[in-house]
């Protein structure tokens, strides 16, 4: 490659922080033991995992014994929904209409086991509809899952308030905090949730590690049996290097949160101002959002085409979430917000991170303007 393309897709995955890599490398080299082994090699591995568990717990104000390591955020979401759901008699399960597929799909699986699934609607800004939420509680929801921050729009739900409203009802409240961690303060206790999903690779940690933080009162059937690791809730030889990386990444994400959020917000605001000036419609601007995310659409411009042109111009952005970007469907989040399918299909997500710079933002705006002009000319010729 002649030039390094600008990576503006931090919500899909983040580059590994070099300090995290440094923490991981010994565990890919001489510290290779199996944490279940009782000899010195094994004990080193066990200690490293214990330390990482403390780091993760500390980052979100939980107790280390509340942290269950998994292979990714998707697994943690599956573990909560199927694991807790499997220990209860089937009832009503309520999730927001804008959940990630790894919440929505396991929720749908529960329907096969007799659960009744309710999708709580959101308003035009992507915030949960309070009345619909209350209705789900009144309908007797036993489990609720509402994401803390949306992966596409970055809209933040007031989960703490929702939990308060759910208090009088007997409900396990889960939140997928994968996109929120490292971008806004996330605290298991002050949110008051019963369970929370985290992922390493969204915060400068490695792929291959996630966690379910869970209140011990929630009974959980394992998804993966055999061996009895993670107190029997998640068997399988621990991925020591990734877990160590996750721990270190959590530590850094929290200690640097204030500064990095401020920096991202400044760049994001500049980016957004430029986009609005060029006629873009930016989603969820009316609510609290992650400081790094802009989700926008330009009238008459197809998102897929725009993203492909931007890639050629050296800017990595996304049209929707990575998991569903294989299918050119309109964004589900936007549809749930009442955006028309044509606009929803044209939406582009820019998400900033540690390596992003003011200069990149300026270059991006220039490249976007140029690309849009060209696409419009092409469209005019085609007509």
């Amino acid at each position, binding site marked *: 490659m002649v030039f390094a393309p600008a990576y503006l*897709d931090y919500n*899909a*995955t983040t*580059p*590994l922080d*070099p300090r995290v*890599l440094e923490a*991981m490398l010994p565990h*890919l*080299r001489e510290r*290779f*033991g*199996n944490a279940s*082994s*009782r*000899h*010195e*090699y*094994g004990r080193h591995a066990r200690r490293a995992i214990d330390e990482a568990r403390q780091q993760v717990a500390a980052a979100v104000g939980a107790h280390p014994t509340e942290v269950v390591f998994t*292979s*990714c*955020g*998707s*697994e943690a*979401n*599956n573990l909560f929904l199927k694991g807790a759901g499997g220990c209860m008699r089937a009832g009503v399960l309520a999730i927001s209409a804008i959940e*990630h*597929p*790894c*919440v929505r*799909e*396991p929720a*749908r*699986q529960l329907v096969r086991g007799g659960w009744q699934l309710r999708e709580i609607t959101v308003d035009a800004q992507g915030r949960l509809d309070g009345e619909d939420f209350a209705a789900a509680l009144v309908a007797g929801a036993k489990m609720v899952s509402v994401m803390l921050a949306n992966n596409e729009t970055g809209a933040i739900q007031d989960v703490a308030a929702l939990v308060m409203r759910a208090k009088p009802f007997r409900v396990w409240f889960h939140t997928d905090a994968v996109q929120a961690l490292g971008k806004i303060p996330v605290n298991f206790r002050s949110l008051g949730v019963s369970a929370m999903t985290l*992922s390493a690779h969204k915060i400068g940690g*490695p*792929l*291959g590690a996630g966690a379910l933080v869970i209140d011990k009162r929630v009974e959980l059937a394992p*998804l*993966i*049996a*055999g*061996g*009895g*690791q993670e107190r029997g809730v998640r*068997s*399988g*030889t*621990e*991925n020591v290097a*990734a877990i160590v990386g996750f721990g270190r990444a959590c530590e850094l994400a929290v200690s640097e949160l204030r500064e990095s959020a401020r920096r991202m917000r400044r760049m994001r605001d500049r980016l957004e101002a430029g986009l609005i000036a060029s006629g873009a419609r930016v989603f969820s601007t009316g609510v609290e959002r992650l400081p790094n995310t802009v989700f926008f659409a330009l009238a008459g411009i197809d998102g897929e085409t725009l*993203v492909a042109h931007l*890639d050629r111009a050296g800017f*990595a*952005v*996304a*049209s929707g979430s*990575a*998991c569903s*970007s294989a299918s050119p469907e309109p964004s589900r989040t936007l549809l749930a917000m009442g955006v028309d399918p044509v606009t929803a299909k044209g939406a582009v997500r820019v998400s900033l991170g540690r390596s992003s710079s003011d200069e990149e933002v300026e270059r991006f705006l220039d490249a976007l303007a140029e690309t849009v002009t060209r696409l419009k000319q092409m469209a005019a010729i085609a007509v």
Partner: protein
Amino acid sequence: MLKLPIYLDYSATTPVDPRVAEKMVPYLTEKFGNPASRSHAFGWEAEKAVEGAREHVAALVNADPREIIWTSGATESNNLAIKGAAHFYQSKGKHIITVKTEHKAVLDTVRELERQGFEASYLDVQENGLVDIDRFKQALRKDTIVASVMLVNNEIGVIQPVAEIGEICREKGIIFHVDAAQATGKMAIDLARLKVDLMSFSAHKTYGPKGIGALYVRRKPRVRLEPQMHGGGHERGLRSGTLPTHQIVGMGEAFRIAKAEMASENERIRCLRDKLFKGLSDIEAVEVNGDIEHRVPHNLNISFAYVEGESLIMAIKDVAVSSGSACTSASLEPSYVLRALGRSDELAHSSIRFTIGRFTTEEEVDYTIDLLHRKVTKLRELSPLWEMVKDGVDLSSVQWAAH
């Protein structure tokens, strides 16, 4: 100079081969894309690496890359294979056959299915640890839908007759799963010939990283599974979750190296194992657990009678070995595998698994032989039982008084 403790626990986990680590590092640094990102070069580059690795894994076992599904490890593969097949084919029957000496990841999974209403037969093994084909046939029922038999046992290293069992299963239309976590790189596996429908693999037992494994899912005849993890629809819907590119690249490279080097490497390891065996055979009252012929060259599991197992492990802490499978060694229960061979609890307790690998040296084996000689002799000097044996007392005739 020897570096202590000497690692002779390659069946618990292996070090990542430095060549593997080297391949992984770029995907931990500049090539960090999410392989599911379809809108930019970072994603494509990661996806390409993932597909390249899939080819290497498939090549080691002579399969089609499209038959390889990434998982977080062999435990997940075993869960996905057995639960996935049992759930998908439950309209055809509810009986599952497995073996008492399987890994916990298989046994616990089958137990869970029993709780869900499936029925299971846990086959005994012969004294040499091998499954008796006739017994297997006798266990078959009209409603048997899944059989799961490991290729290589993790504790005693014996190789089960999966080729024969596969023939039987295919003929009866039973889905046959094989846990091959302990087999890759240690013996040739040819899935074009073996009538195996599902096979589990692990990277970290074959010099790859932890946290990654694979499940082989046969295409012809096609085997169907109910996914166990749902979400973005990765791995053709069979296993959702962002793919850990660097780990996948590591597994691919580890399996590529295994294919290229296993013939010569296993010869070298066999020599070391034989040397260790010969060296330890000099000690009185030792016994090998499991068939010594039908066995991978890496494994030697030996009982040192009249020595208390825990004291032995403590006495030889300069060699890192295991006294049961690593996953259960936190408990002091005698190994269920050795008990299935008919070993007494005492003998099971005094058994040690030595597993040799790529980085084991002759010097380390010599040191181990010497250490065992010294420590076993010393511990037996302290043992009243040993004294009685030496005096010619037949311990089985002794009436022990309760107190």
